[in-house]
């Protein structure tokens, strides 16, 4: 007996419960069987009105506010803000301060990439790698704590320079820690590129061509994995990157595996850079004098956060409060790529695709919204109800 049924399209909500996500978002993926046919994102869960608040606080208070836009890349936000404000005030931070800014930025990049390796592995179900990489990450957290006094939200920057110095003991500790981390990074590189089970989740999945990446406006390691040579540290060096040049990590394949490889290669580059900085750290002051009232003007600052290009636009009207602070974070540019790449892939690959742009976590919601194709009705179900619905459906079909 032939049974005819209309194709049912389900809309599955992922989010907004996301532990440790920069922009917790609600995604809705419409699926036909296992293949995603449409994707939609709703952001706004972490929208705190920071740009408005920045206009109501003075320049120093804004430093502490803008550091807390993101816990994982707090230093790079503060660095971008300080560099832009220094540009407006015609203040040049001393060379030692710039070098320390770069040092902490690279340590932050290391911490972020280790975090990301763990989180993506967690998305793929590879819990062991998650635990191992986060254990190793504790080493770099200890180094940052020894240097700055806090594991997260280091607050190294002041307007005009930095407030933390490095002595011989800290230098020795950093070098020892880097040695350990480099050995671990080599091990993870092997795991990520040779483990067959993991490669089945990453090789050839969610391929983004160079043209697609450029058209969608993707940046950071996600773009570099598709052979788009865009790295602000190389194209528009800021702070001490002119004295300590960086080599871009590129990959031509554009799939998830390429994104892993690019980030691990960036880790190696960061280790090399930190050794170079510690060996040739310039002597001098830690901070230059910064005026209370910043002269009127506009400044644009682009920096390379661990996730991509961070864009700061600051306008001053000559008072002790900024007129306008605009922050454009990298994830918002990369989010478009998730929506476009998800379509055509399996639903099971969607968490990995999301993790591939490095937005941090995503967690499944607890209900499923069933929308019958062609029928305007919808019903909310828990997973258990959905399971029972499925059993009843197939029983009815094959009676």
């Amino acid at each position, binding site marked *: 007996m032939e049974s005819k049924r209309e194709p049912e399209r389900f809309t599955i909500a992922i989010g907004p*419960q996301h*532990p440790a996500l920069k922009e917790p978002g609600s995604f809705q993926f419409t699926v036909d069987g296992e293949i995603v046919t449409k994707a939609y994102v709703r952001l*706004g869960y*972490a929208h705190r009105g920071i740009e408005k*608040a920045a206009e109501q606080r003075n320049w120093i208070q804004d430093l502490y*506010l803008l550091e*807390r836009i993101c816990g*994982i890349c707090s230093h790079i936000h503060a660095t971008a803000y300080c560099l832009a404000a220094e540009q407006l005030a015609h203040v040049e931070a001393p060379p030692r301060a710039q070098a320390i800014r770069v040092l902490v930025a690279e340590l932050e990049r290391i911490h972020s990439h280790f975090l990301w390796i763990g989180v993506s592995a967690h998305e793929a179900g590879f819990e062991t790698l*998650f635990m191992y990489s986060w254990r190793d990450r504790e080493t770099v957290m200890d180094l940052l704590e020894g240097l700055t006094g806090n*594991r997260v939200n280091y607050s190294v920057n002041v307007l005009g320079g930095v407030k933390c110095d490095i002595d011989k003991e800290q230098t020795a500790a950093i070098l020892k820690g880097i040695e350990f981390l480099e050995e671990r990074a080599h091990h993870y590189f092997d795991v990520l590129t040779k483990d067959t089970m993991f490669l089945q989740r990453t090789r050839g999945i969610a391929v983004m061509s160079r043209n697609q990446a450029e058209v969608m406006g993707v940046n950071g390691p996600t773009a570099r994995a598709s052979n788009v040579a865009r790295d602000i540290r190389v194209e528009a060096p800021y702070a001490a990157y002119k004295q300590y040049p960086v080599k871009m990590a590129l990959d031509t394949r554009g799939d998830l595996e390429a994104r892993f490889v690019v980030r691990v290669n960036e880790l190696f580059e960061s280790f090399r850079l930190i050794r170079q900085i510690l060996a040739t750290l310039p002597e001098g002051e830690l901070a230059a004098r910064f005026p209370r009232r910043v002269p009127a003007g506009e400044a644009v600052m682009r920096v390379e956060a661990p996730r991509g290009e961070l864009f700061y636009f600051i306008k001053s009207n000559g008072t002790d409060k900024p007129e306008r602070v605009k922050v454009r974070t990298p994830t918002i540019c990369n989010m478009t790529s998730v929506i476009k790449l998800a379509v055509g892939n399996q639903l099971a690959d969607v968490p990995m695709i999301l993790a591939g742009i490095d937005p941090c976590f995503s967690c499944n919601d607890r209900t499923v919204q069933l929308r019958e194709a062609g029928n305007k009705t919808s019903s909310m179900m828990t997973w258990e109800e959905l399971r029972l619905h499925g059993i009843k459906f197939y029983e009815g079909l094959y009676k």
Partner: protein
Amino acid sequence: MDRKVGLWKETMQGLKTWARVNSPWVLHFNSGSCNGCDIEILATLTPRFDVERLGIKLQASPRQADILLCTGPVTRQARERLLRIYEQMPEPKFVVAIGSCALSGGVFQGCYNVMDGIDHVIPVNAFIPGCPPRPEAIIDGVVKLLSSLASPTSKTQPQSLEVEKVSV
């Protein structure tokens, strides 16, 4: 007979408290924070701090959780979801507010899109200050909550079965 029933009830209560204190299942929710506190919560699960040896397990579903670990200053968009998650948790449930933002809004106090703290939305049992609090501080806070459960005082009794919606 009454004495036997009383003894039975007391034993069962003791058993429930023992289970609750020795193996609390926690749910984590980020109501709009910068993720600093969330990373530290996750760090407690990782090998250096390892709360699983204390019996604490991270759950994905509010229906199976005892304790809600909440971070963030509660943005307007997240408020509805936070209430819904709180209502989905079965009694007895406890809420731990982690980080300065969860306590009072932190640096975001007064911003147009935040509710300035979790206790403006749901009742909170324990507050852990810090920006972010270290994993040791988070574990300490949760352990303090559990110890107060083991020897209950009037302040930390489980919420009444009639949950009132806290109006904002």
